């Protein structure tokens, strides 16, 4: 039914995602490492009007506000989806709770891509299957707390966990299978808009597509007076 096996369900209830990854050490977790912990997959070359038009269209869509309260308590109505989603990201919820972060802190506003948005052209540029695309707007003084993505479960756990069929808790935390996540910058970052990936701070420009290895902790903050817009793409690598 697209849920973790019972054994994993039980164990994951109290786990810190960050601490499990740190223990398994698939990423270096070395504070002294100078390795760049992200990479730029490609650059999508479009005129500034393309990006601005897409952003303007995006902002007409009602956003889902992702705050610490949302992470601490998922709100899906459907029971099966609620259960599967909750179990898929329970360890992330645990980290937010363990941090004691204020529930009202907003990570970002998330929006879906409307069919007539010019940004749908981006899908032709992405060399992945089963693409899910969303957009994140981080407003002034909003922040994403340190977290680690589980790309293989976060977008549509009902189907993807079944497909990837993790057999053990360790498998869930050591591999994301063929799933990857990309971030596309819809504009150059303004001073004060920072994206930390592991030991690195992202240096990129409008149209850059950013990726990273599984297990890299990341966090972002917007100290500027301007919203920061990115595309969030999850998909499966083509063989």
């Amino acid at each position, binding site marked *: 039914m697209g849920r973790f096996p019972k054994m994993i369900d039980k164990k994951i209830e109290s786990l810190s995602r960050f601490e499990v990854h740190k223990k398994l050490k698939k990423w270096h977790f070395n504070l002294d490492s100078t390795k760049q912990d992200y990479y730029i997959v490609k650059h999508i070359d479009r005129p500034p009007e393309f990006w601005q038009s897409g952003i303007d269209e995006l902002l007409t869509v009602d956003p889902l506000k992702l705050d610490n309260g949302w992470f601490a308590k998922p709100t899906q109505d459907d029971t099966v989806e609620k259960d599967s989603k909750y179990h898929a990201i329970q360890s992330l919820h645990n980290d937010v709770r*363990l*941090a004691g972060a204020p529930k009202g802190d907003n990570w970002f506003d998330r929006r879906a891509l409307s069919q007539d948005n010019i940004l749908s052209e981006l899908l032709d540029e992405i060399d992945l299957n089963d693409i899910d695309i969303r957009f994140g707007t981080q407003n002034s003084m909003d922040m994403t707390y*340190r977290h680690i993505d589980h790309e293989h479960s976060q977008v549509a756990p009902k189907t993807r966990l079944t497909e990837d069929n993790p057999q053990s808790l360790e498998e869930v935390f050591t591999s994301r299978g063929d799933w990857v996540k990309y971030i596309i910058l819809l504009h150059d970052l303004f001073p004060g808009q920072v994206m930390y990936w592991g030991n690195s701070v992202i240096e990129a420009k409008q149209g850059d597509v950013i990726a990273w290895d599984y297990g890299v902790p990341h966090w972002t903050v917007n100290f500027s007076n301007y919203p920061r817009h990115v595309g969030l793409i999850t998909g499966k690598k083509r063989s």
Partner: protein
Amino acid sequence: MKLTISVGDIASDIVAGVKESEQYKLIFHSDWYWGHSVLVNNEPVKWNANTVFNFSVKPQINVANLGDRDHDIEIEFLRID
């Protein structure tokens, strides 16, 4: 002044109210950890305990701790008269 920035704390231009002078020091008393964000004049900085930054013009300092309860950011900002 000494500041402890705990997880969930975020603030911009934290020394804006400090009196003008010809020299300032920013001293870190804790190590950098994953989740820590400090920008000095909009440039992200990293540090270890006892790292010192000197300034002849009062800097703009933005701070956020997005990590965990076990890792506060401990800083001290001094105006040298």
